[in-house]
């Protein structure tokens, strides 16, 4: 977001808002609500604070998801009709689901599943796939360019890393969400510890990949430069 202030460009703003909305504030507020409740199935009486935290958590998270999708659309598929329609459908499903779930008691009862729940979670479970696919496809092209000296190997590698980080996000979302599909809350609770550890491990790996992508240390830059066969740097 600081970069966006300097450059005045939107993609970095969308990415910054996306990361803040989903990973920082969105999940932060929802986790706080879960902690207060004592888990998804709870046991304590649901208070206004818990409901408010769930609401604001979902609001920020879904705003973050929208920003990430905007980033992917703007960077990889600018001015293309099909992807714009896909973006519109995904965002509509996400927000209709979020609002509809709240109005049918979904912020009070976290295990409440209906059509709105599926509309919202259908998007949450799949949105990182789009960015991952676009990034991997572009990485293939960038590798070819880098071999000819038409692209910086460090930038080419950044597409691979961002794709891997998107897969990490997807894995973390699936790991935390799949117990919600179990009909029995007690059965879901049994997987709690495994889920927390697995999600934390994936989260740490994803953050490491992000840091290599956006804050590459000197040794990583050197390693990439050594890996690259000599090409003509004039166009890059």
């Amino acid at each position, binding site marked *: 977001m600081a970069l966006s202030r300097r450059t005045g460009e939107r*993609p970095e703003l969308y990415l910054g808002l996306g990361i803040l909305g989903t990973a920082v504030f969105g999940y932060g507020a929802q986790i706080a609500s879960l902690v207060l409740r004592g888990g998804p199935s709870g046991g304590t009486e649901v208070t206004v604070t818990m409901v408010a935290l769930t609401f604001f958590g979902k609001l920020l998270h879904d705003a973050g998801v929208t920003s990430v999708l905007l980033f992917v659309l703007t*960077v990889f598929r*600018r001015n293309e009709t099909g992807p714009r329609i896909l973006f519109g459908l995904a965002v509509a499903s996400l927000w209709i689901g979020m609002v509809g779930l709240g109005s049918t008691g979904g912020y009070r009862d976290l295990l409440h599943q209906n059509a709105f729940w599926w509309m919202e979670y259908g998007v949450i479970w799949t949105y990182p796939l789009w960015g991952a696919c676009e990034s991997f496809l572009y990485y293939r*092209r960038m590798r070819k*360019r880098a071999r000819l000296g038409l692209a*910086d190997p*460090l*930038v080419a590698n950044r597409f691979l890393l961002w794709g891997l980080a998107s897969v990490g996000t997807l894995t973390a979302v699936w790991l935390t969400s799949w117990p919600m599909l179990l009909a029995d809350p007690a059965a879901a609770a049994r997987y709690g510890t495994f889920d927390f550890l697995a999600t934390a491990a994936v989260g740490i790996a994803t953050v490491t990949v992000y840091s290599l992508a956006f804050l590459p240390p000197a040794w990583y830059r050197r390693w990439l430069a050594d890996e690259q066969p000599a090409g*003509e740097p004039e*166009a890059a």
Partner: protein
Amino acid sequence: MAETEAFSTVCDHLERSTALGRPAARGTVRLALKEAGLDPESVTPSQMAIVTTKLLRAELESLRIADVEGHCLSIRARLKRLGTGPADGEATPEAVFERLAAGS
């Protein structure tokens, strides 16, 4: 998206100065671009010049085109006159991802 002037310039040259017809000329240039990870809708003159030297030359030789070296020189000279071109702008995924770690 429309093809860039750099792509059209090379195709025009091959079409007019060699025995290749329009589809063959365009197909040959497209193949070279694909091998370089580029596409006709966004290739810049400077990128096209390198593709000409490193890939198109070999493509033309495999097609037994006469005076390949002369054609390459002529194409590069025409590309140079185009300057950097509008496709050298900052809207490409590559430009965005380059900026994302610019402060590091």
